[in-house]
């Protein structure tokens, strides 16, 4: 009876550890596959086209709309900073 109980506990513990490890492995595998796909996409020539298209449409959208007061302050503050930072490019 006692041996049977020990046998039961042993199998249960083994199964729990095995299931736990399998879950971690599957989780890692799926995470890695997703990361892989993201990197492959970002580095592919298609992604450049895709991003350029998005940026172009955003610029189009931005040029047509009026700024709010907060946005006006934001651009005023930051665009000048960027201009100062990259001034050397125009001087060279």
């Amino acid at each position, binding site marked *: 009876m006692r041996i049977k109980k020990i046998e039961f506990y*042993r199998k249960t513990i*083994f199964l729990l*550890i*095995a299931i736990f*490890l*399998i879950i*971690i*492995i599957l989780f*890692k*595998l799926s995470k*890695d*596959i997703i*990361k*892989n796909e993201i*990197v*492959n996409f970002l*580095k*592919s*020539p298609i992604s450049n086209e895709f991003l350029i298209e998005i940026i172009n449409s955003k610029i189009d959208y931005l040029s047509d709309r009026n700024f709010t007061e907060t946005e006006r302050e934001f651009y005023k503050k930051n665009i000048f900073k960027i201009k100062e930072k990259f001034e050397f490019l125009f001087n060279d």
Partner: protein
Amino acid sequence: MIKILNKNILLLLFPLLSFFGSAFQGQFVYDGFHLSIPIVEAKRYFNNEIPFKEFLIHYGFLKTFIDSYLLKVSSFQIYSLFLIYSFIYSFSIFLITVITKKISSLNLALLVGCCVYLIHPYMIQPWHNYFLFLLILLFLYFKLFYNYAFQYLFLGLGCLISIESFFFISLIIFIYSISSDFFFEKKKSLFFFQGLFYFFLPIFFFFIYILFNNLFYDFIESNKTVRVVLNTYEFNYLEILYFFFLNIFNFNFKNLLIIQPYNLVFLILFIFNILYFFFIIKKKSKIALISFIALCMCYNTFHNYKLYKLSTGLIIGIIPFAFFLNTLKDINNKIIISFLFFLVSLNSRNFFKDDTNPNFVFNYKTEINIINDKFVYFNYLKWNKEQWKLYEEFTEKILLLKKNCNIEAFNNLTSNGFFTLLAYDHLKINQKLLWFEILNYEPNLNNLFYNFLKNYDSYLIDNINKNLDRLLVITTSNNYPDLNYKDLNLNFAGKFKVMKFSSYYGRNIIFLYPEKCNL
């Protein structure tokens, strides 16, 4: 007979997977730092430059010697080194499985092969660790199953692969092994002297070479790695031991299962081998030697705790583990422990570019990267267009400057040794190290090589000052006009003109050519 053959062929499965995987990944490796070392050393060796005196031997003389001849046979193609070292690593996996099969069973041998493959699947770079690993396994194989005195030759050869760091370890292994021959196997004193002879034979020949060529001082100067590493990290011997234990006994749950999952495998092997060694040594078993060697081989992770170092050292401890599994009487226990160990090994494998597989090839690289036939050294390597363009432009500029400015010598102050390699075909290289970079964010590395050759700075400055009219320097733009590092102070302004070149890993690279030269 066919059945036996078929079963044993299975042992080749994981070594073959490792070989072809390493060979495939090797095509995409772009590393001007590590890959240039063996090939430039080989070129300088065959150009009758004196090792240790005129150029630095980075690992061990025997490694440079073997690499040089292998490269010469393959017309100095870097990729051939990848193939050879991939073979060395996969053959080592095969040897582990063969040893395991001989002391346990075919099933356990397959499990061991599979686990070793999962933990460290592919060879990373042609480093000396893989060579040492093979020599240690060859020693073990002959010691366990034949015990001829000549097996000690492998330990002696290992010393020459990495003389400074491995010599004392191999001496300890030698003393332990030869004393066990006496006490356990009742060998005669003749065997002792034969063993001693084979162990010291390669070392003796090497020192004859050193003394006859009057290189003893240069050899000692070039072999200060351990002291320099300790200096660099400001550690003492006890502290590096402490950091090793800190690394291996890292019980952080997230670290053991997700961040560095291979640590769990090595933690198991480390604890198991310590306990098993003291348990089994009483029984005068040969297996104790394997545990002893596995524990000794931990030395190579003391200063730099990396997976490939564990996988070419402590991993040997998997053999006693398989032997122990084979001795278990309860078949259920055997299956449970084997399966759990397999799962832990599988968990240590990531399917992304990381520590376990730094040469991982993303799909986009297989589509974008191309072969370029213009450079014999880089045949079969697949790099992207920008990377090829860098070396094409470099060669063009070198030829242009050589032609118009009568340039004869070249100094490379970047970390990319491929520049040295390509320049060596046209110009004289007058520096011991093939690269030298001053970077604030890699202080340890710079420190290492700065300390390596204490006279290097004066040597470098002398060379630059003496060859002002004939010298071409390539460096990162942050080293112009002043090359400032510690007490090394060199001003290029007024002596050299600047030519903008390109960028390497985001750093702008410039050529410095003689002031008198007009292009």
